[in-house]
């Protein structure tokens, strides 16, 4: 959806710029562009370059050694594992929540819509503490969990829970406006034609939301891999066991092992960049492709 809006904007701004009546003076444009570029260079580009420069300062050998270290490999594996569990869970939760909010009317709908945003507004540290309070040794369910020999806090389940909590809104937020805009007439048409609920979902609803869904999943994945605060509280920082990549970077840094810290950090940054590339590819291929298709008959040049 974002990409569709963006293409619309560029067309619009081109027309806006072409007209002398609506064009700003050159010096205004110059200053605005300069501010934007300076900000971009200073706050986004410079740190990114620094990460890679620092990582490679002692050469490729040290760089690769840092990445194949057993603790590093374990952190990479754990990060991918947590994302691989949390993202599908949030995919299901997000679709269900968006479906419920967009297509049904029920009491407390407004409350649910607000609650979905809670993970965005609450500090990740608080999110982590919630789970410690619930499942920690001194927490509400602590004694019961110890009795049954289930480990949640300072173990992988806790990491997954904290990540799921923090990344919950991404899919739902992306889908709710989309599904609300589409209404439910197509679903009604499918049911009248004899389709079952399952067939309606797979053949009508899912194809209509697939690009928005993919977009939400990508964002959700980016955050799941990069999450630090909430995960830090429930992790316990056990090397080789409960350290995800962001946590491992911090430990290495605190131990003055800068080369290794930046090497792992660069990998994390690389994953983030990759996510952005995939995201913009999806943005271009998805809604834009639909628009081209619909444009052929409307006489859009």
């Amino acid at each position, binding site marked *: 959806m974002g990409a569709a809006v963006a293409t619309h904007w560029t067309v619009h701004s081109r027309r806006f710029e072409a007209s002398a009546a609506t064009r700003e003076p050159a010096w205004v444009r110059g200053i605005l562009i300069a501010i934007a570029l300076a900000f971009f260079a200073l706050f986004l580009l410079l740190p990114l370059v620094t990460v890679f420069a620092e990582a490679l300062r002692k050469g490729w050998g040290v760089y690769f050694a840092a990445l194949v270290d057993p603790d590093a490999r374990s952190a990479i594996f754990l990060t991918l594992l947590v994302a691989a569990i949390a993202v599908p869970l949030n995919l299901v939760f997000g679709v269900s929540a968006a479906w419920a909010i967009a297509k049904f009317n029920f009491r407390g709908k407004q409350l649910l819509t607000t609650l979905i945003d809670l993970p965005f507004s609450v500090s990740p540290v608080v999110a982590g503490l919630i789970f410690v309070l619930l499942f920690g040794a001194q927490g509400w369910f602590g004694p019961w969990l110890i009795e049954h020999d289930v480990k949640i806090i300072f173990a992988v389940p806790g990491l997954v829970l904290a990540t799921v909590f923090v990344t919950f809104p991404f899919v739902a937020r992306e889908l709710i406006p989309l599904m609300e805009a589409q209404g439910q007439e197509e679903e*009604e048409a499918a049911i*009248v*034609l*004899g*389709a079952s609920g399952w067939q309606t979902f797979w053949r009508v609803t899912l194809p*209509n939301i697939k690009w928005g869904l993919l977009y939400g999943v990508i964002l959700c994945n980016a955050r799941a891999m990069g999450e630090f605060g909430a995960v830090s509280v429930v992790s316990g920082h056990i090397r080789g066991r409960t350290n995800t990549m962001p946590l491992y970077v911090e430990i290495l840094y605190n131990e003055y092992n800068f080369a290794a810290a930046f090497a792992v950090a660069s990998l994390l940054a690389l994953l983030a960049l990759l996510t952005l590339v995939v995201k913009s590819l999806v943005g271009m291929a998805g809604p834009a492709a639909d628009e081209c298709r*619909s444009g052929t*008959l409307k006489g859009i040049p």
Partner: protein
Amino acid sequence: MSIHVENIAKRFGRFVALDHVTLDFPTGELVGLLGPSGCGKTTLLRIIAGLESADGGQVLLDGENASDAHVRERQVGFVFQHYALFRHMTVFDNVAFGLRVKPRGQRPAADRIRQRVAELLDLVQLSALANRYPTQLSGGQRQRIALARALAVEPRVLLLDEPFGALDAKVRKELRRWLRTLHDALHITSIFVTHDQEEALEVSDRVVVMNHGHVEQVDAPEQVYEHPATPFVYDFLGAVNLFHGRVHGHHLHVGADHLPVGQHSFATGAEALGCVRPHELEIATDPSEPAGIEARVERVLSFGSTSRVELTGADRDVRRYYEVELSRERIAGLQLAAGQVVRLKPVRVRLFASSQAVEASV
């Protein structure tokens, strides 16, 4: 298949959408549900389809109580105002959808589906567009595809919810005629909802006029137009001039003026509402004329085969508007000027009791 709805009631919060409606839709007829927006016509259609559940009452399909039957089991075809075509599927896939989602045992073979879709696209005269997507079609084409899709599963009834509501005037007219021809060929029991009186009168075998959740009149189109049962129907089906007054003998006294009303069953002194269509009024320019309502000419609109004269009541304290339709020759003979005071004389007046009048003006 015949449809019978019995005592259907539906509320949305405090709003009464349907107030115990009972109606019959005989087999093979095309019935128009006509009324202003919010009168409950779409709600009734959706209840018949099963897309909405009634608070009370029954829906009988072919004499069988279908109130608890699932939408899927009712075998109805539904056409939506905004087409509701599956936007990610081609025209072909849209039409084939109903056949492809059938349970494995009843699903036709792929060849048979292809053949059936081809037949349907032929029927709606859009065979050339099978591989297009809905966004590549015009509104009129989309609605014809929606109709083909609904017909694919051989529904027992066809329900159309303002099918031409989103189209421009010219296409509407074309599709109207086309729908009528199609119905004459298929003879499938059909109900279509509209707020356009011309559309209802032109297409339907019978018209059901609804207002505020209840039925005002059920009749053949010409009956509804020529003999409206209530002032509401009078007003809704075309323009009408209203005269509030008291009955004295063969006259209706309106303020200081009086109108001849002919035969009626009202007691002398009873309050009544006279309804007169614009073409049933004559204009008398002679000021000494004793009968008729005094009025002042505001504007004369001449285009097309008839001319319209807009007038206001001569008494400026009470704002009243009148409309008269005359032939162009007659207008030319009258030589009307804006501001001129004339008398309006009805050729025909329908009288209604004033209690009905109150309801109509709500």
